[in-house]
């Protein structure tokens, strides 16, 4: 009987020991590391998870893009200011995408990324090395060799693409201003190359519509940037963003035109003004010129009104050899022009020698511009003429980044607005806007390409 009692006492002791944790020492030997890790991590993990959930919930409240891997809130305010100036946000859907794209514009790139960016920028095709399955197409009506603005915009798109591990390949084309037929051939080449989406600037406007329609029919999303509408909606043959192609990234062109008019109404009040544009009838120039014409003050005389509301005026084709001719024509007929509005600051730089040719001093002059190439601003600083003032919005190179992000969002299943409005604000050029240390004097001050990359791009 005694042994049974002893055994019973022993079992109870064991049960008691098990309940008090003494047995843990035995169990620990089976899982000596797991339990401390789990235990140690348990509380922080739970806490972190709670915080993450809270942040995520907050982000989701602010932006529906978080579930698609974008974080508009992470955009560095200093970079937003650099790219756009002190703007007010555009509509929430647009603004979120703009911010999400700037959030990816890292200024602290490692050497491997810089090397890869240079490779992809300089080659027609490159493997990003990420192993991603998506292929980005880039279709420019101009190209790296045409001018600095095109060059930098391309690099912005490449850098943005490299921030997405899902993108494994980049295929780039450039039409070098050869016209809509070449642009369409390039888009068709991209379709054949198996790209998943195309970002670019269609210089041909509605002229490239057939190829864009073919791309979209093939399931390839097309996103032009810099207000590169594939024709304005009321232009013949135009495609409609949101219906015929994914979206267009750019400023509200009418608001931009109104801003230009406001500058001219103030700076050239009671004087003569002229409007300059790019290729005849292009959507960008037509969009802002229509509204500038309508918003000019009664005491301001437009010396080169467009033939009708579907025509652009002051067509320069954005083609440097033609720009002096345009200035000469305007200044010959009207030596006293007090203001110009133009979307291309660099073009003004090409036109300024005509003033000297004709013996017209560069004074009592107000310029309302969109881009911000440094060469013009440094020329302005050098002239030190108090009656010569320049106002600008932003170069908008970074808009190609927004195009990439918009396409990636669409591929991920997000709703993307048909018009991704990039806000703008007019700023007056000061001496601080001329930075002679920029890697290239024709680079926009508002570009988000890091200087070390720009230095490599323009090192020669």
């Amino acid at each position, binding site marked *: 009987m005694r042994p049974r009692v002893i055994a019973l006492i022993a079992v109870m002791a064991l049960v008691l020991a098990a309940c008090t944790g003494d047995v843990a020492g035995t169990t620990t030997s089976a899982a000596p590391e797991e339990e401390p890790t789990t235990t140690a991590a348990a509380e922080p993990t739970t806490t972190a998870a709670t915080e993450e959930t809270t942040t995520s919930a907050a982000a989701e409240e602010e932006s529906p893009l978080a579930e698609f891997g974008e974080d508009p809130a992470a955009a560095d305010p200093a970079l937003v200011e650099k790219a756009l100036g002190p703007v007010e946000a555009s509509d929430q859907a647009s603004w979120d995408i703009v911010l999400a794209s700037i959030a990816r514009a890292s200024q602290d790139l490692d050497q491997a990324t810089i090397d890869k960016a240079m490779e992809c920028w*300089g080659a027609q095709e490159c493997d990003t090395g990420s192993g991603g399955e998506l292929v980005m197409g880039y279709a420019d009506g101009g190209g*790296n*060799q*045409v*001018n*600095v603005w095109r*060059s930098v915009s391309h690099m912005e798109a490449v850098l943005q693409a490299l921030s997405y591990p899902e993108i494994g390949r980049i295929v780039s084309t450039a039409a*070098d*201003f050869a016209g809509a037929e070449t642009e369409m051939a390039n888009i068709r080449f991209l379709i054949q190359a198996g790209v998943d989406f195309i970002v670019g600037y269609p210089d041909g406007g509605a002229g490239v519509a057939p190829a864009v329609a073919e791309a979209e029919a093939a399931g390839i999303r097309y996103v032009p940037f810099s207000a590169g509408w594939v024709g304005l909606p009321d232009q013949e043959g135009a495609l409609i963003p949101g219906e015929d192609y994914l979206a267009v990234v750019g400023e509200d062109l009418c608001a931009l035109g109104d801003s230009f008019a406001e500058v001219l109404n103030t700076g050239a009040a009671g004087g003569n003004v002229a409007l300059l544009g790019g290729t*005849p009838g292009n959507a960008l120039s037509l969009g802002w010129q229509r509204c500038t014409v309508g918003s000019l003050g009664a005491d301001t005389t437009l*010396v*080169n009104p*467009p*033939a009708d509301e579907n*025509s*652009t*005026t002051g*067509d320069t084709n954005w*083609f*440097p*050899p*033609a720009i*002096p*001719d*345009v200035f*000469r*024509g*305007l200044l*010959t*007929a009207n030596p006293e022009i007090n203001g110009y509005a133009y979307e291309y600051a*660099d073009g003004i730089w*090409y036109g300024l*020698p*005509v003033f*000297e*040719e*004709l*013996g017209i001093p560069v004074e009592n002059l107000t310029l309302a511009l969109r881009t911000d190439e440094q060469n013009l601003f440094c020329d302005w600083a050098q002239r030190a003429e108090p009656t010569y003032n320049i106002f600008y919005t932003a170069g908008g190179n970074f808009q190609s980044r927004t195009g990439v992000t918009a396409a990636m969002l669409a591929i991920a299943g997000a709703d993307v607005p048909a018009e991704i409005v990039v806000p703008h604000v007019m700023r007056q050029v000061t001496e601080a806007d001329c930075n002679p240390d920029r890697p*290239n004097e*024709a680079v926009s001050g508002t570009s988000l390409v890091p200087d070390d990359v720009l230095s490599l*791009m*323009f*090192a*020669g």
Partner: protein
Amino acid sequence: MSERRGTSSAVTSFVVASRYLPVYLALLVLAVVAAIWAPQTLGSVVLNAIAPYGALLAITALGQMLVIMTGGIDLSVPGTFTLAAMIMVGVTDGSDDRIGVALLAAIGVAALIGLVNGILIGGLKLNALIVTLAVGQVVIGLVNRYGRTFPVQSQVPPGLSEWTSNKILGVSPVFWAGVALTFVLIVAFRYTAAGRRFQVVGANPVASRVVGVRVNLNQIAAYVVAAVFYALAGVALAGLLRSPGPTIGMAYLLGPIAAVVIGGASLSGGLASPLSTFAAAFFLTGLNQMMRSMGLPTSAQFVVFGLVIIGGMLISGDRIIKGVEQVLRDRSKPGPRGRGALVAEGGDP
């Protein structure tokens, strides 16, 4: 009969002498129109301002004229023009010290391009239009490749841009360079055996061959010299613009051909006048300037420009002389009415 022949000969001589007259009449009409609708374009300041651009077109057109005189055509102008401009950027690297080397390189490369054109057309008798188009494409490809070796929108050395913006007797040296080249060609055609042989080759290659003129060599030389002219114009425009791009020569594809045709040359080859070509280049530049000053929409400018070129084609070369001779022959035939009347009535000529 001999009296009739004498009359015909006199009229023919007059028409031959005046084959280049239309361009001067066109200049006169342009001046009158400008005086009425855009008088400011006739001011000396404006004329001085457009003078270098007119001279650039003239220099390019003189090159094209040499080719057209041999019965050929050169569509490689934009490529050669652009490559020369880009060489001034790439070779100099912004340094005035290297302007001479760059200029020699630009001329040398252009001459090589002209030599390739010349051998393929003059030597191998390939079609000029296709060959120069193809060579032009190759050159544009090379320009794009070469353009990657230095930063886009790089500038020419300040010495070059200062030279083009300087004034000699109140006008850009580019204008005087155009005048000098025109004068050289006039002298060469009138007073040198080589120049006269060259003109004969263009007028009648078969007869030239019979009398021992080396037709092929002359044709090759035409393309080489023409390419050098394009290069000089490209270099000058690079100086005027300060920052040439890979598209700088695009505007010089059709303009020079139009100037040559309006200047009185026939696209089928034969005689041409350097002075008339020079005048035609200034006519086109002045027309362009006037249309811009008048604020014509771009579409209207294209229409007017196109119509002027068609007009030039209609009165170009020996069209007038052939027409007049035809009329005279018809009238000299026996019978109350000439050949034309019979044909018009459906009768047997």
